[in-house]
């Protein structure tokens, strides 16, 4: 057994800890082993085939070092074995400061995300503000109301239709823009273009809706003015349901093309330039290189992002739609989505029962869709030897 020596570093150690000096070969410089480096000692011993050579000329078997190092590392575990529960409790107590650091977030998430989950119960209740989540139980009445009202079809249809348009337009323009940016040789020009395209992403929808009204307002809008100058009767956009899906798609393209192209650009940047050089030598034109090299290599990313977007198809873009349309009943036919309907119910406290039922329906369908799409992504990407799923 090794001779115990006083530790020569000036780290303060709890009473009962032993220090040992060792080398792996005779004559080598010795290492002071203490509580902290007990772990390292253990790791070294595991790698060693032969015994340790101690400073005082003795040899030490790996087993002996083990018995030495473990008590040095975690003195508490010496003695009787604790139950898993006691271990867990011990760990929580040891890390109480860590838990206190995380506590604000834990409490906030509990209050604002988990309590509302219990609030789902209101979908089966006759909600009254005074009784809150514990209002009178009415079973499925809210859902019966929902199924008999014409509103459900409209909400689901609009939500899914608009989202389908957004996904399609977003993918086409994101990929297109990435392909074009990728062809730009001038770095500075490319960076500036990118920055300008990202900017709308950081604008408040409130500002955007103001800009939209500056374009489409019946009296003073740019479009109205132009058509008056050209001798047409201007269109009253805010009373015309048919135009809004187009307006929304244009807005989404304007806002999201920059940020949407960024992932595609990252993929394109990782393509081996030799591919392009070889194709160029073989006489492929720029367009052919884009179509036959860049695009096929983007396909996995396109599929992945589209699948993930489809997972969220029940969650409408209420930021844009609510701010731009607001409570303009004239165009609900094409613009009213699940979220805007619920917001109106909150603000006017009419149709509360129906909107609570709509909300729960959306939560459940949305959950299934997110989970389903993620499952498909997982299966699909695992077959390719990768994992792109979110969870």
């Amino acid at each position: 057994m090794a001779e115990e020596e006083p530790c020569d570093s000036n780290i303060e150690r709890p009473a009962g800890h032993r220090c040992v000096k060792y080398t792996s070969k005779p004559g080598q410089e010795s290492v002071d082993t203490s509580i902290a480096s007990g772990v390292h000692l253990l790791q070294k011993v595991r790698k060693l085939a032969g015994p340790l050579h101690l400073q005082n000329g003795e040899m030490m078997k790996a087993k002996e070092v083990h018995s030495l190092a473990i008590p040095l590392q975690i003195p508490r575990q010496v003695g009787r074995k604790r139950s898993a529960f006691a271990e867990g409790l011990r760990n929580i107590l040891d890390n109480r400061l860590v838990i206190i650091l995380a506590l604000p977030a834990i409490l906030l998430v509990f209050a604002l995300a988990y309590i509302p989950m219990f609030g789902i119960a209101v979908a089966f209740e006759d909600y009254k503000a005074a009784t809150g989540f514990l209002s009178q139980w009415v079973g499925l009445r809210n859902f019966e109301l929902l199924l008999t009202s014409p509103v459900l079809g409209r909400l689901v249809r609009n939500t899914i239709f608009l989202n389908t348009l957004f996904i399609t337009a977003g993918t086409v323009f994101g990929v297109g823009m990435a392909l074009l940016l990728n062809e730009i040789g001038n770095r500075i020009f490319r960076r500036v273009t990118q920055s300008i395209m990202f900017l709308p992403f950081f604008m408040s929808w409130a500002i955007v809706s103001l800009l939209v009204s500056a374009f489409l307002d019946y009296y003073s809008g740019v479009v109205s003015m132009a058509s008056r100058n050209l001798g047409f009767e201007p269109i009253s956009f805010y009373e015309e349901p048919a135009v809004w899906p187009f307006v929304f798609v244009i807005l989404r393209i304007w806002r999201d093309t920059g940020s949407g192209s960024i992932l595609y650009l990252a993929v394109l940047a990782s393509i081996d330039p030799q591919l392009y050089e070889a194709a160029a030598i073989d006489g492929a034109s720029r367009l052919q290189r884009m179509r036959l090299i860049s695009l096929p290599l983007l396909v996995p990313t396109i599929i992945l992002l589209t699948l993930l977007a489809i997972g969220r198809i029940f969650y409408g873009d209420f930021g844009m739609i609510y701010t731009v349309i607001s409570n303009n009943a004239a165009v609900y036919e094409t613009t009213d989505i699940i979220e805007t309907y619920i917001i109106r119910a909150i603000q006017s406290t009419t149709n509360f029962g129906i909107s609570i039922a709509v909300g729960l329906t959306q939560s459940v369908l949305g959950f299934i869709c997110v989970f389903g799409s993620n499952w498909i992504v997982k299966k699909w990407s695992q077959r390719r030897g990768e994992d792109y799923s979110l969870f």
Partner: protein
Amino acid sequence: MVVSSFTPQKVLQVDGYSLWPRALTTEAYVWALRGTQVLTGYQVTIAVTFLGTFLSVAIMSGAAYALSNKRFKFRNPLGFYFYFTMLFGGGLIPWYITCRMLGLYDNIWALIVPSLVNPWWIFVIRNYFNSLPIEVLESARIDGASDLQILTRVVLPLSTPVLATAALFVAVGYWNDWWLGTILLDFAPFRPLPVLILRIMNSTRAINEAMLAKGAGITIDMSQIPTLSVRMATAVITIGPIILLYPFVQRYFIKGLTLGAIKG
């Protein structure tokens, strides 16, 4: 928009928007800033953005530290606790009822507290913490540093890139937020700027519609309606700081977008 905010109201009414107006004036700004609403709105927005961003990043990095701490055995269950809220939620109405029950209604905290914690950013920050060399943290621990000291003196200073990115996105979120102000403020005497813009716009549109429906017969006190150029001035005030700061911080923006796009 910028141009029309400097254009006199009369020119706007006659000529509509143009890139080169016939006359320039700062009248609209003077009017907008003299009115208490816009000025209070600006103060509210600034206060909410600074307070909210600071608290949010502090709280989220605390949680991220717990999730990255190898000594803490329950970090994975805790991770799932945060993660589950990204998958499933109670929906808008229970959330709204909860906010009101907690007193997050008609006061400034209603604009701050609901968006303090975003699980997504917690995981982004945790991933960065995980990439820090563990030896540095361990040696700090051996030197007698507590977890709080390790976090504030070692981890946070080493993580400025990710913290800056997160702070920037959170700040933009608070600055642009119209949602909490719309839904959780009813009788409060203050409104953040984006909510003000929306309200002004909706009331003007309602008046326009009324005029369209009833013809010119009805009389409306036009002085009560903020003019077009005032609306534009308010919008310029709101968007100004973002546009001005954008060139300097845009690399963080781009980094944040890339982080947001890949697996956490």
